[in-house]
């Protein structure tokens, strides 16, 4: 039994050591600094595109913060929108979590609906350095109205189009398209010799609804009007029709793209195999640097005239992009609101915003900083313009569901796309289903849907 006893002893010994180590560590380190009044917990998106720069920025910011307030910063990250939402839910339900969040603009309505974030009244705006330091357009999705806002604009990442200047020159195109129809025509002209006109990702979880939203806005349809959903409408139907026809009728998109996500479409563009790559931000720069199209591409505004039209209708909205970027929100459940406002003030200053642009290429929301950047970087003019022409999505707690319904129409259509056609009948049926679901969600919203 000697081996057995030795083994047993080893097992028990290991167990004791392991549990002891864990317990001691748990006791010794105050890990949950949710209660530490001298540490501010800040939650932002994980950055794998610029990891070194991110670390550098965090160190600089924390050092400056310590110098002015004497407090430390604990940086926490989420790696996907789902994780972002989970983090918000768990913090809200338990009343403990990060003190400041940098959330995506499209999630601000959800955050508002929880009521767990500080509403920025005049005192609060003063504490962060004043509301008017921010670009008016960037405040568009801070809250349901100008008097009820929770989001402080932090960074701007408008959506633009990347164009392959070489392929365009080869096709003899000298002017960039400003209407969706012109874009389709230009894409057609550049589709040849194994090149495609457009790189579009039909199976992406986010891209499709942005196209539809953009085209519908240009035609005057904002998807949600007050508390009514407007999905079963001509403008939306035209949008989907155009979107689907690119791959089925016009043949300007690679048929394989019906299974792609955004990264794969970007890869096609980066290989120089597509002339236009709509629905991207300047962060894609990192991939395009050193790729086959390096030096042969530029960013341009997305079209602002709806399909099947040559100019925008009277009620059309000149929306070149969704209002995209990050908002800072301060948690209401925490006890460190003053410290949080200090942090927000620090990162909203012109110098800090310019530094952020320097490191990550994201546009500032501070007006002064934005003007400086625009002046010093003339080649960024289309991006700056896109930022100015960004319009917010509907501010309603139902938006997350509505977005899902819009994408679902595409997901359900993918088999039809593969077999070559999405009939009007199918499309209308799916739009009707999406309309039903969206309206049901809107009806369910409390507080009048914000």
């Amino acid at each position, binding site marked *: 039994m000697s081996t057995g006893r030795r083994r047993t002893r080893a097992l028990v010994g290991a167990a004791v050591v392991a549990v002891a180590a864990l317990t001691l560590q748990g006791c010794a380190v105050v890990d949950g600094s949710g209660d530490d009044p001298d540490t501010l917990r800040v939650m932002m998106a994980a950055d794998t595109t610029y990891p070194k720069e991110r670390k550098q920025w965090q160190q600089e910011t924390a050092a400056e913060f310590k110098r002015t307030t004497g407090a430390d910063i604990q940086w926490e990250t989420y790696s996907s929108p789902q994780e972002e939402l989970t983090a918000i839910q768990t913090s809200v339900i338990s009343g403990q979590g990060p003190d400041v969040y940098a959330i995506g603009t499209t999630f601000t309505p959800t955050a508002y609906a929880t009521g767990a974030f500080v509403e920025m009244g005049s005192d609060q705006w003063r504490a962060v350095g004043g509301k008017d330091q921010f670009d008016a357009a960037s405040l568009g999705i801070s809250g349901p109205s100008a008097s009820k806002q929770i989001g402080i604009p932090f960074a701007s990442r408008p959506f633009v189009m990347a164009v392959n200047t070489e392929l365009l020159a080869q096709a003899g195109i000298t002017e960039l398209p400003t209407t969706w129809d012109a874009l389709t025509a230009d894409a057609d002209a550049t589709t040849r010799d194994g090149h495609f006109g457009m790189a579009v990702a039909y199976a992406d979880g986010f891209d499709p609804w942005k196209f539809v939203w953009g085209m519908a806005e240009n035609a005057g349809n904002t998807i949600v009007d007050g508390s009514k959903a407007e999905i079963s409408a001509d403008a939306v139907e035209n949008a989907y029709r155009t979107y689907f026809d690119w791959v089925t009728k016009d043949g300007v998109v690679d048929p*394989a793209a019906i*299974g792609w996500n955004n990264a794969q479409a970007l890869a096609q563009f980066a290989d120089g195999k597509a002339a236009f790559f709509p629905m991207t931000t300047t962060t894609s720069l990192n991939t395009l640097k050193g790729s086959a199209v390096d030096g042969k591409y530029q960013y341009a505004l997305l079209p602002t005239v709806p399909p099947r039209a040559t100019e925008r209708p009277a009620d059309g909205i000149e929306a070149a992009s969704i209002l995209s970027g990050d908002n800072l929100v301060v948690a209401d459940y925490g006890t460190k609101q003053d410290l949080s406002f200090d942090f927000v003030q620090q990162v909203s200053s012109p110098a800090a915003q310019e530094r952020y642009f320097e490191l990550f290429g994201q546009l500032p929301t501070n007006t002064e900083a934005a003007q400086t950047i625009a002046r010093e970087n003339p080649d960024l003019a289309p991006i700056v313009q896109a930022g100015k022409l960004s319009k917010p999505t509907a501010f309603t707690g139902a938006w*997350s569901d509505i977005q899902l319904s819009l994408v679902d129409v595409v*997901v359900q259509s993918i088999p039809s796309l*593969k077999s070559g056609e999405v009939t009007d009948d199918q499309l209308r049926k799916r739009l009707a289903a999406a309309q039903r679901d969206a309206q049901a969600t809107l009806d*369910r919203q*409390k507080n009048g849907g914000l």
Partner: protein
Amino acid sequence: MTQVQTRAPRDAQRPPREVRPHGRTPLYRRERPLWMLLPGGVLMLVVIVVPLLVGVYIAMLDLDQYTLRQWFSAPFVGLANFVEAFTDSPLLHSVWISVSLSVLVTAATVPIGVAAAISTQNRFPGRGLVRSVYLVPYVLPAFVVGTFFRTMLQPQGVVNTVFGTDVLWLNGSASYWALAGVMVWTSWPFVYLLSLAGLQAVDGEVHEAAALDGVTWWAKLRYIVFPYLRGPLSLAVIISILHNINNFTLPFVLFGIPLPSSVEVMPVLTYIASFQSFRFGLSAAMAICSLVIVAIPLFVYLRAVKLDTGDDAGPTRKQRRADLATLAAPAAADIEGARA
């Protein structure tokens, strides 16, 4: 049974080498160390049972992002969520998909796992390495597996290129089979591990007897070895089905949300209801409904296989000897004749 002080009388009383059928073995009634149940019991109570009860309570609330903050005082709606889950949501459809998928996948993994266990039972150079390589699909994190299979299953991806097909794997009706295939790929090592442990119990003497009696490898496997695996396989099957029903990450990463309708599995559905639509009450109700729907066949299975009471002990030694004898009777006669 009382503690006896001397040894000899006891030995004399007990009949030698009595084969007692299972289930009637006397269990001691005195000195039951029930305190050993305490640590595990307390843990499970605090970390599983209490949250489960909280979950049941949440299922009876109208909990969404508006009421999340003061969740305890959210409006009480009784069974409304359950009714909606049953009648107005894709729950029943998704339960059907989840269950059928798991049963299919488990059925496919059993032969692979058992074959793998049998193939590494005997020593050969490099056996440790092969055994460890077998574990790799199970070790890889689900989201990594999902990501690379998603790329491989693209319309012009590796799978279609190698097999010369042009099937849409990630959407439409083929997606069900794609998901089944990927789940089989990642989960067969589970059955393999349990079978491996079970195989360790095979008597050495039985091997010798079988060899002496000249039994073929297939007959030996079938009549001698496989009965040893009945216990571990019964457990492996039920646990594997449960794991696959509740598998969230793989379908989520493979297909993203929203899911194509043919792979609308239950865990992703409850996740969407909870973290996308923010209807926590409904999501909890859905999860509980599916739990109940799954628990019923589970208990039927338990009784059928007698896994809970342990009466499924498999053949006794005497029975196995008898099996062996009937199998090897002609061969044995020859050997006996040759020896004589």
